């Protein structure tokens, strides 16, 4: 926007733009409530949970003794906790790619001149807005119970009924499905990004004889890569935190097949009163999430393409 000749002028303006008051304390006063809230509701709990993770804090007795790394050793050796780590990874690695691929695929189709695009978009988006609610978890149970809707469909095709929620290999898949079903918000983002891809790039490519799939890989994907990146990071962070689905639908069962880390965190603190172990598990999860976020940000340079006027992010 600013070309060379007006750069000086805009620099002058920038100096004029902030009066003494604005440069001084006024902005700080405006953000002060947030800062106070941050210290009380974020920073203090964040640090205390790290401290608790090295103690044997009991939710009701309250007594805490320093126990070193015992809780962390438990987190990585007790079979129940290790299982939860595995299940959480399985959950994240199943849901995140599936959700993103599906969202992109549908957004790609919707981006052709489709009549009734608004109607389809709404239909696909409703599950995202309701998906986290208890009502939908209840619905999921009705759909997948042993004589539920899905089994009625299977029976019509001649298959025997499957007790999805009691079967160890199916239960996690059903929980994942609930999340993939909520691909709408990622799709809306992709759709907006696809609409922003300049039409003339495609025209130039088809004159050069590039096929549709070639155009998709070489033009569409690079241009929308910032949105892919944004979706990837937010979906990862959320997938590692999922609680409602497995807690309400299967309550972690059968035989811990759907016990994600978040359930262990909740159960060990509020059922076993072991705040120490619970905090340690929460921190393990936090570190894992952070590592993945850092990997995503670090890999950004390799595959995310920011156009010049968008580089500020």
């Amino acid at each position, binding site marked *: 926007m600013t070309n060379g000749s007006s750069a000086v002028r805009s620099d002058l303006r920038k100096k004029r733009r902030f009066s003494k008051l604005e*440069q001084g304390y*006024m*902005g*700080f*006063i*405006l*953000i002060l*409530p*947030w*800062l106070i*809230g*941050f210290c009380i*509701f*974020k920073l*203090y*709990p*964040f640090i205390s949970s790290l401290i*608790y993770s090295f103690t044997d804090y009991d*939710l009701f007795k309250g007594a805490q003794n320093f126990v070193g790394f015992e809780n962390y050793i438990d987190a990585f050796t007790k079979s129940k906790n290790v299982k939860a780590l595995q299940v959480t990874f399985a959950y994240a690695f199943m849901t995140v790619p599936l959700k993103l691929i599906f969202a992109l695929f*549908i957004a790609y*189709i*919707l981006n052709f001149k489709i009549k009734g695009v608004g109607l*389809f978009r709404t239909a*696909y*988006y*409703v*599950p995202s*807005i*309701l998906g*986290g*609610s*208890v*009502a*939908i978890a*209840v*619905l999921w149970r*009705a*759909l997948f119970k042993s004589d*539920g*809707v899905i089994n*009625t*469909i299977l029976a019509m*095709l*001649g*298959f025997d009924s499957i007790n999805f929620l009691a079967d160890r290999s199916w239960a996690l898949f059903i929980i994942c499905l609930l999340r993939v*079903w909520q691909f709408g*918000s990622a799709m*809306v*983002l992709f759709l907006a990004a696809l609409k922003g891809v300049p039409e003339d790039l495609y025209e130039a490519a088809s004159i050069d004889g590039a096929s549709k799939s070639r155009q998709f890989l070489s033009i569409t994907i690079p241009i929308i890569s910032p949105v892919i990146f*944004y979706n990837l990071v937010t979906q990862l962070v959320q997938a590692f*935190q999922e*609680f409602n689905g497995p807690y309400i639908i299967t309550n972690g069962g059968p035989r811990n097949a759907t016990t994600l880390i*978040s359930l262990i965190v909740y159960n060990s*603190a*509020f059922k076993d009163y072991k705040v120490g172990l619970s*905090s340690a598990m*929460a921190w393990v*999860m*936090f570190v894992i*999430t952070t590592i993945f976020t850092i990997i995503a940000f670090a890999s950004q340079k390799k595959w995310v393409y920011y156009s010049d006027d968008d580089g500020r992010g």
Partner: protein
Amino acid sequence: MSKIGIMFLVLSIVLLGLGFYGGSVQMPEATAAEAAQPGAAAMHLAQYSNFYLLLGGVILFTVLYFTIHKRVGLKTQHLMSTTVRYIILIVVGVFMVYPLLWMVSATFKDNNEIFSTLNLIPARPTMEGYKLAMTNYGGDINIWSAMLNTYKYVIPRVIFTVISSTITAYGFGRFRFRGRNALFALLMATLFLPQVVLNIPQFLMYRNFGWVDSPLYLAMIVPSLFAQETYFVYMLIQFMRNIPRELDEAAKIDGCNIMQTLVLVLVPMLWPAMVSAGLFQFMWSSNDFMGPLLYVNSPSRYPATLFVRMSMDADTGFAWNRVMAVSLISIMPSLIVFFLAQSQFMDGVTAGAVKG
């Protein structure tokens, strides 16, 4: 036609043939043991005939589509691609919407019918589910007071979040002060801070404050006074960037002080973003399950989310129409708000900072 194409064509015809044959096999009466029994293969086909028909049909369609697509003019090709796109969209749409429609129809069915048919139109429509949903479970809570409880904290939370987030966004977006960049980095970092890490110390802290099981739902409301949902702050800052600073300056020249500039100049421009933030907060707070699970203990103070879960535990196995009616009532306000304000939701999502 390529060899692979022919192979699949033959396969689909065989599958369809098997399916039709299977459909024609007479299953023997259980009593007529002496009648001629169909062979094991025939029995198998009779059982799976629908499956074979479906599979064969899909393969046949795909083969024909690709074969014809190559041989016809551009105009027909275009028509065919468009048709297939609509088919995919409709099939996916059915997967998205059918469960919800099924839920609505289940509330009008009797319990014998709910799981015996896939029909959405009840054969014997009944209001039994709703009648039962109105009665309470013997405790001092029913669906209406649970709904009331929900909005007792959702509405203050929405209002406080919008106001506090706007003020914080204003401070970060329009002012320079010592440490601004460091604090902004901190704000952004909290976007990635998982709530699960904070839950237990927060619980212990709120317990000391006496906020657990508070009749005013303080644990759910008070943090929203302090702009603690970073998504909204971030979203509002992004919006504010697009409002020209010249407007602020003009207001200042006209003698507005800082708060007047915010309320009279920026808020009218920011309004769509503030509405979006409020709508999302409304949805997320109404759906919130973890918060009430931790901070609400007395059944009389249960919000709808806990009430639905309780009714599920109480009724699973027999009164599904009641459970479905309770669930549907609990999400009705969210659904209505969503359909009234669809475009704000879509705009809010694309504003760039929304989870879901």
